[in-house]
């Protein structure tokens, strides 16, 4: 929500540096943009000093954005769920991606469905899985952390069992890679780098739709209301359970989309796509929190999460250029963890010093 705090906290008056500090600490977007600018400057300096393995060029950055698609979409899913309040969180996004990805893989790769119906099936499957989470959390009042931990297990199990733990990678699936590969934009495409197709097919539509619904829509109003104060929402006549249910439903639908991206990106439907290693849920939650989403609910903006995604992806891309071999992926973990702890401690500080973040 675009609430700028107009004069009520200490530290409002004062010098330019004091006000800058205040803006950095309390306005997450300002901080993220400053960090992003700083990152690019530092990487450019490193590049000019000859410390990088390859140039940190605009083409490189554009191509790196394909990693932003699944990461950013899932972070947006976490935004919706966490904002809905009452301890909202979705640990099951990774296994929802796995299971809907397998569904999609079966439809395209084995049953020979055309792309569009198969994509719709994936969305339907994602919606169904999200609805199960929503039912337990919103209708029955189960704690979200544990509910989605349970469905994390259940869904990942189903994904693995569905094809005997084997991936589906038929030629028909391998044909789908165009969905995520870089394309030259029409008209002015020659003057800008080639952006990945997935950005336009998946990320932009979701960002726009979510922004319209969550930031500008009546649904978003109700969502922030129940996340801020569940009881007051009920007194105001907000259909609390239904609004919260839809948050988990949206999370499932987004997972369906991410599954399609994932399958086409790797030319294979893998049953552990979203759960291998640390899974997809942890980075998604990390980016949401970095983007200014408060774990207590009711606070967080779509724009913040989008910028945080770009920051993390470009930071990761820069790290990859700075280290040889697998060291890069290790330092990515350091960056992710460090940035999260930093953002969380900053949130705590902002609350005590200035009364909150916006």
């Amino acid at each position, binding site marked *: 929500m675009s609430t700028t705090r107009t004069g009520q906290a200490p530290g409002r008056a004062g010098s330019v540096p004091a006000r800058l500090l205040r803006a950095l600490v309390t306005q997450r977007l300002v901080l993220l943009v400053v960090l992003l600018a700083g990152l690019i400057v530092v990487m450019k300096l490193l590049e000019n000093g000859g410390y990088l393995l390859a140039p940190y060029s605009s083409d490189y950055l554009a191509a790196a954005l394909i990693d932003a698609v699944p990461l950013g979409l899932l972070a947006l899913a976490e935004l919706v769920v966490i904002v809905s309040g009452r301890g909202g969180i979705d640990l099951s996004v990774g296994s929802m991606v796995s299971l809907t990805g397998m569904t999609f893989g079966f439809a395209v790769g084995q049953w020979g469905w055309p792309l569009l119906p198969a994509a719709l099936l994936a969305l339907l499957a994602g919606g169904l899985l999200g609805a199960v989470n929503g039912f337990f959390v919103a209708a029955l009042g189960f704690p979200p952390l544990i509910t989605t931990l349970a469905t994390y297990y259940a869904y990942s199990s189903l994904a693995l069992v569905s094809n005997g733990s084997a991936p589906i990678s038929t030629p028909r699936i391998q044909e789908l890679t165009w969905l995520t590969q870089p394309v030259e934009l029409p008209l002015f495409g020659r003057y800008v780098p080639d952006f990945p197709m997935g950005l336009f097919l998946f990320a932009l539509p979701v960002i726009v739709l979510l922004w319209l619904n969550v930031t500008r829509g009546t649904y978003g109003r109700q969502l922030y209301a129940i996340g801020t104060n569940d009881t007051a929402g009920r007194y105001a006549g907000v259909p609390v359970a239904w609004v919260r249910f839809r948050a988990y439903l949206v999370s499932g639908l987004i997972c369906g989309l991410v599954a399609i991206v994932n399958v086409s990106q790797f030319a294979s439907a893998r049953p552990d796509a979203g759960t291998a290693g640390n899974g997809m849920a942890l980075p998604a*939650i*990390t980016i949401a929190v970095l983007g200014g989403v408060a774990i207590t609910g009711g606070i967080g903006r779509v724009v913040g999460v989008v910028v945080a995604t770009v920051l993390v992806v470009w930071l990761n891309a820069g790290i990859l250029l700075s280290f040889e071999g697998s060291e890069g992926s290790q330092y990515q*973990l350091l960056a992710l963890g460090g940035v999260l702890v930093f953002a969380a401690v900053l*949130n705590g500080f902002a609350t005590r010093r200035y009364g909150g973040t916006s």
Partner: protein
Amino acid sequence: MTALDERPRTPRRGPTGALGGRITGQELVLIGVIAGLWLVLGLATDTFFQAGTLGNLAYVVAPIALVGIGMTVVIASGGIDVSVGSAVTVVTVIVAKLVRDQGASFAVALLVAVGAGALLGLTNGLLISLGRVHAIIITFGTLNLFRFIALRIFDSEQVAGVPGTLAFLGGGGAGRTWNVPHAFLLMLLLAAITWWFMRNTPSGRHYYAMGGDRAAARLAGVNVRRQEILAYVLTGVLVGLASTVIIGGGGLIGQNVGVGMELQVIAAVVIGGTSIMGGRGTVLGTVLGALLVGTVSSGVTILHWPSQLTSLFVGVFILVAVGTDVLRERARRRA
């Protein structure tokens, strides 16, 4: 309900002096379910009641339950620690390299494991307590940080050829007496001590008070911060012990050791009846929860079902456990 409900009633928990108070309803149900499963598995297969099968089950359960003991204290007091899996990775790789490259003795390895675990736990505790940030966020962060540290120490290679220095706690023959893994006995011993501590000492009771109402506990004179930090340190110490169990007989330590373990531990704790909202939970329940998960896993294997089905059952058990907790809370609020 009227004010004076004179109906005599068996108290639910320990500090009552009565024998009936030592075991909770949820624990009884769990014992029943585990016994039932064992009976079914024993009848359905020839192999389940063989000492080897049960011994393996006990060995697999031990590290989960060990960390679960600390996690019970953390969750009952209103916190959570999702970094334990990564912490296990860190301690495991440190200790594995120590015994392989420096030839460290059993005692030294154990000491380093416990010390390193405690240090990681202390990091969590200090960040949570001093940063005043929700535990789940901080430990999500340290999950990544610990994993980074572990991978740096792995140095892009698995640790191969680890000697059997810690075999006494391992799953092999040297780690068992009459087929009972020493690791399982160690876990039982520590669980019993912690169970007693949580039940019978002021500090133990204060953890429940903190989980119930942190502000009121502070007003009542509970040193909330010290208790909180100690809970994470305790979890770290147990992470250290669990790591030595995992290294056990040595051999190959892969980079994936410990990954995802936090979820298994939390599942065991929740199935054991600890409320994720804090204020309620017992170590005995957690041990039973871990045992149930281990039994299901073992059963799926010997029935030759796809091993991945285990997770499905675990998910269902979690939902059932939480469901009873939610229903009980509602009934209480209505009273």
